[in-house]
């Protein structure tokens, strides 16, 4: 019984991780860079949700869309002002792409953390719960209302994201750009817009993850660092740029941590991801669902 309970709780934690990791994987898929400010998108979501719900006194379920909007905005701004030079204008950028992307997104992460630290203050706040239900039991499982609603929102978001990418015109354009940027632009696809959409979607997912977890994590300026580290581990395990791979790796990590925390050691629960990461890099460096890198 304990094992089943751990499994379900692990899956729910994995769903939070997936919300973060999918956005990161999408950005890698389309631009071949890693966004090191991803954790701060999460932090902004958590703060927007908490400040709007507490400051304006609106019901929490109205603050959730506001957090999503803030995530979309920061994603859009990052792409528009910091990422766009990567693929417009300069021919020589190809060589320095990694350098530029790592330094700039890492700088953005530091900037956002310290800006929030200065403007809002370093002290953690407490976000209101979406659904203040006491622990309730569904069949054999005991869980809190907040956890349940988070899991539901995460599933809805991910299913709609999958539908968007598979079915919609913009989604198909994004797939085309991820496969071959030059080819897509020759076919008349606006590659800059596709990148912009991907950054906005990634910002929305991370911000909603932050908002949903606000009652648990107590927003503070550096709250995004650790979830971001988890999602870096996940995207490498799942295969860089693979969206289904990152979802499965996120669920796997959630379950592994949930079991490890009980059966191995609670204090070291965060190291299991690192161990798994190193094993994957040793045995299957392209990740669980990644393709071997092809260079043309």
């Amino acid at each position, binding site marked *: 019984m304990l094992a089943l309970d751990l499994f379900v709780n692990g899956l729910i934690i994995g769903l939070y991780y997936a919300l973060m990791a999918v956005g990161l994987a999408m950005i890698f898929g389309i631009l071949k860079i890693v966004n090191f400010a991803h954790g701060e998108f999460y932090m902004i979501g958590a703060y927007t949700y908490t400040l709007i719900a507490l400051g304006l006194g609106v019901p929490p379920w109205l603050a959730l869309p506001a957090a999503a909007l803030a995530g979309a905005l920061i994603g859009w701004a990052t792409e528009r002002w910091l990422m766009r030079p990567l693929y417009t204008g300069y021919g020589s950028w190809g060589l320095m792409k990694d350098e530029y*992307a790592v330094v700039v997104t890492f700088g953005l992460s*530091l900037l956002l953390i310290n800006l929030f630290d200065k403007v809002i203050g370093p002290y953690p706040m407490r976000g209101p719960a979406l659904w203040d239900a006491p622990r309730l039991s569904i069949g054999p499982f005991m869980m809190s209302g907040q956890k349940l609603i988070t899991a539901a929102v995460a599933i809805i978001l991910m299913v709609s994201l999958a539908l968007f990418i598979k079915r919609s015109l913009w989604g198909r354009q994004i797939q085309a750009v991820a496969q071959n940027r030059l080819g897509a632009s020759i076919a008349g696809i606006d590659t800059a817009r596709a990148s912009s959409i991907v950054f906005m979607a990634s910002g929305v997912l991370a911000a909603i993850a932050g908002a949903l977890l606000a009652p648990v994590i107590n927003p503070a300026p550096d709250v995004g660092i650790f979830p971001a580290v988890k999602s870096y581990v996940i995207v490498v395990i799942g295969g860089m740029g693979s969206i289904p791979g990152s979802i499965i790796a996120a669920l796997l990590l959630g379950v592994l941590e949930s079991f490890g925390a009980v059966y191995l050691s609670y204090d070291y629960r965060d190291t299991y991801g690192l161990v798994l990461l190193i094993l994957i890099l040793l045995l299957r460096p392209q990740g669980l669902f990644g393709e071997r890198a092809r260079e043309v």
Partner: protein
Amino acid sequence: MPARPHPNLHTSKLRSEFLLSLAILGALAMVPLLVQSNYWLGVLIVSMYFAMMACGWNLLAGYAGQFSLAPAAFAMLGGYSTGLLAYHLDAPLWIGLPMSIIMPGLVGLVLGRIVLRLSGAYLALTTLSFAEIIRLVIYNSIDFTRGDQGLNVPALYDGRIGNYYIFLGVLTLIVGLIYWLLRLPLGRFLQAIRDDEIGAASRGIDVLRYKTIAFIISCAICGFAGGLYGTFARLVSPELGLIAQTGLVIAMVVIGGMGTLAGPLIGAMLVYTASEFLRDVGGIQMIVFAALVIIFARFFREGLWGLLRRVAVRRAASKGTP
């Protein structure tokens, strides 16, 4: 008289940068004659600690093009190598300090062998995850490391002036070591790998081997910086490995000039002393530096050193060189 090696752009550029670095270090050696305040000497000692990490990180990122996001974490590892030996085994510093070079170097060897087979963002991702998780492990293993209370480390030398010259001497050695390495074929191999990894491999350069060597040296330099810092502060704590510390190191290199010998020195001195002033203005130092990192990476890739050189070249040109 032995034939002098044919002068070329690479060595002459390196030599001029090395001479400038020596001038900066020489100026630093004069500072205690003018500044007697213990506070400012302390500030300069800490900025030399950062300069060591900046030089180590620059060798890896600026010259080899491999982005580690864990210089501060390796400094923390180095500090804890010394600290744990002293705390558990009462090891004297002549054992403890060399261990602060060896241990981070070994970790670098293992991690580098695994991660550097893959190019691109893998190193940055893995080192950042490693940095945060190892910090958490040290923080949580209270029985072994005393957690966030930190470990006491014996002092190498008492007194500010003595420590000042120890740090300056080590920093000079590190700058000299990097200059020597870059003059070897290794230096050119690393830059070839940075500019075009596949091209370098096609010319017969063992890419994995040289990337790993650069990573190990960089880790060992950062580790020694951490070990030395521990003997100065008499304390090592998990705070040494915070991401903000890594951010400071990267800010120094990017602002000073990446891929240049003198850039990290200029950057470390300017950024750390400026951060002391900005702290008084209202704790805005990290906001300013993070914004500067973005601006420099976006518009002035070569940092302050590159800007200075561009001005110098333009002045020389306007004077009418033949």
